[in-house]
């Protein structure tokens, strides 16, 4: 002990034994301490990067310009109103230098071109991270004190979603994520409040289960609940991973709870069903595939996703229900998106036979259920309430639960300390959200959230959309937020309105902001077409665009219905921009027509997209113009030629900026193309 203490005490004596020496040494220590701060500054990372930048710039052709732009010292972008204090540009020196496109390493890369500048919104708005930090580590990673690591590039579009509430052309991933939240029923259980008031709405209503016993069997319900995707690969219903006994009880309850709808079943139709080729061609002519998909032999889904997949429809529906549904779907479901085709009895029988044949003999082979007991039915009911089935489905006697699942309005700002991660998972918010979507029950087997079968791309899109739901989005100053356009609840009035909802026109066409985008917007249809053509088209809808796969089906409308609809469209759906009578439909001079022809074929090369002469023209993009003089009004043609986007925003027809005279001559040429036009279009 003593011997080891000895060197220290002698050292102490030599240093501080003499007061003068002691003073000198203390001063020296003080000086060193004082020098630490400037030295730290001198050797700081940002200074190192700034020096590196100047070194890199020196050897470049535009060195002088770059050196002139360079500003030494800590740089800062400060916007207190949106919580931005970003010093990132202290190291990321070349962000704004357009000439640095060839620089491939950080921190000197030029920022990719985006619609905003860094000065406008800073960096952390989109990239997250700690803007105020001045070291690489603190700025980019999450530490105990700083919680916000840099956001991986795959979720970058979440930044846009903080201000932009509507779909943006340049953010397909964010748009997809939001669409999935609405389509897959996420927002039915989790409420997501929007900053501009209101909540995110579901876009697909799951079918009502109140009358399900009319439509299908208990066996089908069992197989479906066990694995919805085994029935239809594209089903949006998730898998609740239920035990067989629980499924038995739920199916028992749903059947017992079902009450019939008058008229939603029909006795067999006496007409003999035609052969199967007639069924396939009726299915084709009716353009069922525009909305319904069917798996083909190669296992690929072919068709639209407005209605349910029909690959195994024969396993699901009872024949008497299917028959009545094909006859008039509105009896069973007044709000369905499916049109009421006015099929003849023969056609109903043909379609029924065709659809019932779409079945898989193995599908229900292993489902054997004994008659249900009252206990099972009661247990089924409690399960239905426990799993929140009525969040999505209407079920007689069970109310839609409120706040069934955690609200996700601010999920994108959730603090890491509040999250429970799986072992081996990296501790970041995006990983947590993506993990929850990928395998919710992995976090705890007792959780109710069901298992979806999303692809990697879909999970990324959903995570992106959820990350945009954060504190900043909620508190964005109104001057910066770009609200979604008001959703339109437009309903046409009167008799025509009834026919239009019976035909479900809005499933495909938009009018006054409401409706689908599968078919042309009809808001100004009355200014655009001639009445006779419209009536003929209802009677026999040919196609105008040879390359289109989805087309207008034939509804077998009565003459009276056709004239009611035509009256309504011709008078109500008119543009305020011009009068449809302002130009004559015919009577143009031969020279004017000839001039128009020259312009069409030579100057403007319209034949690259349109067909006027079916023998020589081949253009396949725009509508066929054979017979256009009997289809469109001259005033519409003229104004369309002058500015197509003014009449139909977003149309791909380019604006040619042509003079009034040229537009008049072209109108003359096009209006001279009389005839039905449909024969050529069939080609």
């Amino acid at each position, binding site marked *: 002990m003593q011997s080891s203490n000895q060197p220290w005490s002698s050292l102490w004596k030599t240093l501080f034994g003499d007061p003068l020496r002691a003073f000198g040494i203390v001063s020296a220590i003080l000086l060193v301490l004082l020098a630490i701060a400037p030295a730290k500054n001198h050797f700081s990372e940002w200074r190192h990067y700034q020096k590196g930048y100047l070194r890199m710039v020196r050897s470049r052709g535009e060195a002088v310009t770059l050196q002139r732009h360079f500003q030494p010292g800590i740089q800062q972008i400060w916007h207190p109103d949106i919580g931005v204090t970003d010093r990132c540009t202290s190291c990321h020196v070349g962000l704004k230098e357009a000439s640095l496109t060839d620089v491939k390493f950080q921190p000197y890369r030029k920022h990719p071109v985006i619609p905003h500048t860094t000065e406008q919104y800073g960096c952390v708005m989109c990239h997250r991270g700690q803007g105020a930090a001045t070291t690489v580590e603190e700025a980019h990673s999450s530490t105990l004190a700083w919680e916000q690591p840099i956001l991986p*590039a795959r979720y970058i579009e979440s930044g846009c979603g903080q201000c932009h509430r509507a779909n943006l052309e340049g953010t397909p991933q964010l748009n997809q994520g939001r669409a999935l939240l609405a389509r897959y029923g996420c927002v039915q259980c989790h409420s997501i409040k929007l900053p501009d008031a209101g909540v995110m709405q579901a876009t697909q209503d799951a079918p009502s289960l109140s009358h399900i016993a009319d439509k299908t069997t208990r066996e089908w319900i069992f197989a479906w609940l066990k694995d919805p995707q085994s029935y239809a690969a594209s089903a949006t219903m998730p898998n609740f991973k239920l035990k067989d006994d629980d499924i038995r009880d739920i199916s028992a309850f749903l059947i017992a709870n079902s009450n019939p709808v008058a008229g939603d079943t029909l006795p067999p139709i006496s007409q003999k069903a035609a052969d199967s080729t007639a069924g396939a061609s009726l299915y084709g002519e009716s353009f069922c595939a525009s909305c319904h998909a069917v798996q083909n032999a190669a296992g690929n889904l072919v068709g639209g996703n407005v209605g349910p997949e029909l690959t195994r429809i024969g396993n699901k529906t009872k024949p008497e229900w299917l028959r009545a549904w094909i006859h008039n779907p509105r009896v069973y479901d007044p709000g369905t998106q499916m049109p009421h085709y006015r099929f003849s009895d023969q056609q109903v029988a043909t379609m029924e036979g065709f659809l019932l044949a779409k079945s898989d003999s193995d599908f229900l082979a292993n489902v054997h259920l004994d008659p249900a007991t009252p206990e099972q039915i009661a247990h089924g009911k409690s399960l239905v309430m426990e799993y929140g089935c009525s969040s999505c489905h209407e079920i007689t006697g069970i109310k839609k639960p409120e706040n069934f699942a955690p609200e996700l309005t601010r999920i994108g700002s959730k603090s890491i300390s509040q999250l429970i991660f799986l072992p081996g998972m990296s501790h970041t918010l995006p990983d947590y959200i993506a993990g929850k979507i990928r395998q919710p029950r992995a976090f705890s087997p007792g959780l109710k959230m069901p298992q979806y079968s999303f692809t990697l791309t879909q999970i990324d899109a959903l995570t992106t959309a959820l990350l945009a739901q954060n504190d900043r989005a909620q508190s964005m100053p109104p001057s910066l937020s770009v609200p979604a356009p008001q959703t339109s609840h437009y309903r046409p009035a009167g008799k025509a309105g009834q026919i239009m909802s019976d035909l479900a026109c809005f499933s495909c066409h938009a009018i006054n902001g409401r409706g689908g985008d599968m078919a042309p917007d009809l808001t100004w249809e009355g200014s655009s077409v001639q009445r006779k053509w419209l009536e003929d088209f209802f009677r026999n809808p040919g196609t105008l665009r040879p390359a289109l796969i989805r087309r207008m089906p034939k509804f077998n409308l009565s003459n009276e219905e056709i004239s009611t609809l035509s009256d309504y469209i011709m008078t109500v759906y008119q543009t305020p921009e011009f009068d449809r009578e302002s130009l004559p439909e015919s009577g143009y001079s031969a020279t004017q027509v000839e001039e128009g022809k020259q312009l069409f074929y030579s100057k403007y090369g319209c*034949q*690259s997209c349109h067909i006027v002469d079916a023998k020589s023209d081949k253009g396949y*993009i725009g509508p066929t113009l054979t017979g256009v003089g009997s289809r469109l009004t001259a005033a519409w043609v003229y104004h369309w030629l002058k500015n197509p986007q003014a009449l139909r925003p977003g149309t791909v027809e380019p604006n040619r900026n042509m003079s009034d005279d040229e537009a008049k001559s072209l109108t003359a040429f096009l209006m001279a193309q009389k005839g039905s036009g449909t024969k050529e279009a069939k080609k």
Partner: protein
Amino acid sequence: MMTKRIPLAVIVLCLVVCALMLAASGCARQSASAAGPAPTAYGSAIVESSGGKQIGAAGSALPQPLVVQVNDDQGNAVTGAAVTFSGPSGVSFDPPTGLTDSSGQLSASVSLGGMAGRYQLVASTMTKAQKRVEIKSEEIALDYQRRLGQLLDDKYCSRCHNPESTSERVSNFDNLEVKPHAFTEGDTLNKMSDADLLAIISHGGPALNKSPLMPPYGYTLSKTEMQALIAYIRMISDPPYQAPGMVYAQK
């Protein structure tokens, strides 16, 4: 004697610890890359089955997986060969290694790095003689501007400029008397300057004494949109486009 021996011992100890740490870290790195299932068979060649030359968004998963196949000398597929995927920093593979399936293939979903550009991916396998054989595939990651360009191309241009039809879109290429070039045809498009491209896109074919079948878009698209199209065309061209002045800058 004693006082002198202690520091020496300390130094030796330090050195030993350092050496151990280095060795340990080295080992860790090695074992990480060699991890993966042990092969049950060996091939002699590796080829790409599908998934090369895709265009994706920077940082995101590519639309299609990368599928490679291991073959033996006779060109027959080999089951159970070990394949390792690798790429530049930022690229991730799921799974990064694995054994080929019964058709001799291994498929991995690929996420590209956060920076736009061309990414060269490598899939490799070992032959029986422990020789490494590999196949390279190139993928392209788009940033915001180029992705906007891609979307505009899909909407306005590809019907004429892309000779391939898809189930959603019938190509108009065959119907045109004068054939346009696909935007990947670098041999032609790389010879045109940015100003040329802007001229033909905004004023149509006649602006460059070409056919009026190429319509003008100057009154339909904004300057930003046309620039996005040009940036996209430059990015996907094959062979790659070299901006003038870049050669100088690199020297």
